[in-house]
């Protein structure tokens, strides 16, 4: 007994070492599946606050440029709206019913504004933190977009901060999208390296399209509404198995200067998700019987 105690006392730092290493390894391997780990990420209130100060200082210096981009975009949209309205009036000779319908469609989405407090570009699996959380109505699995296009999907939420999986995450980001005005579906993926380019996989072989056409979300992903801009096609390849096309696209969102984003919260999406879940559960039940 005395020998045992002596042994324990003499080598206690080795036990401490093994314990701390074990703790680290558990954290390392559980982070991606373990939702409670919000305390060990930048969604943690203290780290989030400190990062927010830092981002505030940075955003002050890039404000002028951001303003410029937003104004340009605004001007462009305004012009497009006017043009479309005029065309529509010419074509139908009336203004009211359909326009009202469109407005209603947009108002069903609740947009929650947020600021980016940390973001990464150079890793393989980048993450991003924004300063809205459960208290503002953000929940895991909601779409995040900015004035220029699609950004990512929310992943972990605390009361006031949220970790977002941006498009630039090779392991976890899969957003379904389509080619504008053509309707062919694909999946948006990213494989590391250049932060300005991503790939769209699984475009069918019979699809007809040209380089320079736009890719946007298709609205079937139950996360984004249809028509959020993704990027422009710059290159077309064959997929590895030769059964589909793979498109290289230039992302319309500039992740390097991203500051202001909106989280898209849609009541009908929640309803659809519930329905899907119910369907899945009932299928599982049938299998077990």
């Amino acid at each position: 007994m005395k020998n045992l105690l002596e042994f324990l006392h003499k080598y206690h730092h080795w036990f401490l070492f093994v314990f701390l290493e074990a703790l680290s390894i558990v954290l390392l391997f559980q982070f991606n599946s373990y939702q409670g780990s919000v305390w060990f990420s930048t969604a943690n209130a203290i780290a989030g606050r400190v990062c927010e100060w830092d981002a505030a200082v940075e955003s002050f210096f890039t404000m002028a440029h951001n303003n410029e981009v937003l104004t340009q975009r605004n001007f462009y949209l305004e012009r497009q709206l006017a043009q479309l309205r005029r065309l529509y009036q010419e074509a139908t000779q009336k203004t009211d019913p359909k326009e009202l319908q469109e407005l209603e469609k947009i108002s069903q989405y609740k947009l929650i504004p947020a600021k980016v407090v940390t973001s990464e570009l150079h890793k393989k699996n980048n993450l991003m933190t924004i300063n809205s959380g459960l208290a503002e109505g953000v929940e895991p699995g909601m779409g995040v977009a900015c004035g220029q296009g699609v950004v990512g999907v929310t992943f972990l939420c605390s009361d006031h901060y949220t970790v977002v999986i941006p498009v630039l995450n090779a392991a976890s980001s899969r957003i379904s999208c389509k080619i504008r005005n053509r309707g062919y579906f694909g999946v948006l993926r990213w494989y590391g390296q250049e932060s300005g380019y991503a790939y769209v996989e699984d475009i069918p072989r019979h699809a007809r399209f040209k380089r320079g056409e736009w890719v946007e979300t298709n609205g079937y992903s139950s996360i984004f509404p249809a028509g959020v801009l993704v990027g422009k096609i710059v290159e077309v390849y064959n997929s590895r198995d030769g059964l589909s096309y793979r498109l290289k696209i230039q992302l319309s969102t500039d992740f390097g200067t991203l500051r202001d984003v909106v989280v898209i919260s849609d009541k009908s999406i929640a309803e659809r998700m519930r329905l899907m879940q119910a369907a899945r559960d009932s299928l599982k039940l049938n299998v077990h019987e």
Partner: protein
Amino acid sequence: MSIDFLKRVVLFVAFVLAQAFVLGRIHLFHYATPLLYVYFVTLFPRNYPKRGVLTWAFAMGLIIDIFTNTPGLAAASLTAVAAIQPYFFALFVPRDAVETLEPSLLNLGPTKYSYYIVTLVTIYCLLFFTLEMFSFDHLLEWLMSVVGSILVTLALIITFEIAKRKV
């Protein structure tokens, strides 16, 4: 609360802030990131309690991890370096040295100090990037990150040591 403890707290906070907001965002040539906080662990003097070194290193690693969203990564690597540091430093201590000799360029001389610091930084960077990628599929990328980060980190540490000697 000894003076030594307070001194280490101040150093600790300084290293965390520097890493989270300045150094952690530098990616020279896309690969080389300075991991200066490993310097904190190499500073513990002779006969410092081993459990103390381990606990400091683990805490440092964990907080760095929180800022980079990689829980456990820096903590695991830094704790490993902390386990080696007391034994490794003992190899370089001159026979007639004081009980609480600190590892520094001034105390050990350029040759011994280089051996000491290069080995510890190399061990740290190897562990860190191996755990981060957790596969050798991208061998070149891994090698570039390890070598790049070792060089940048060492350059910073040597600069600090030379500055310290002049003061």
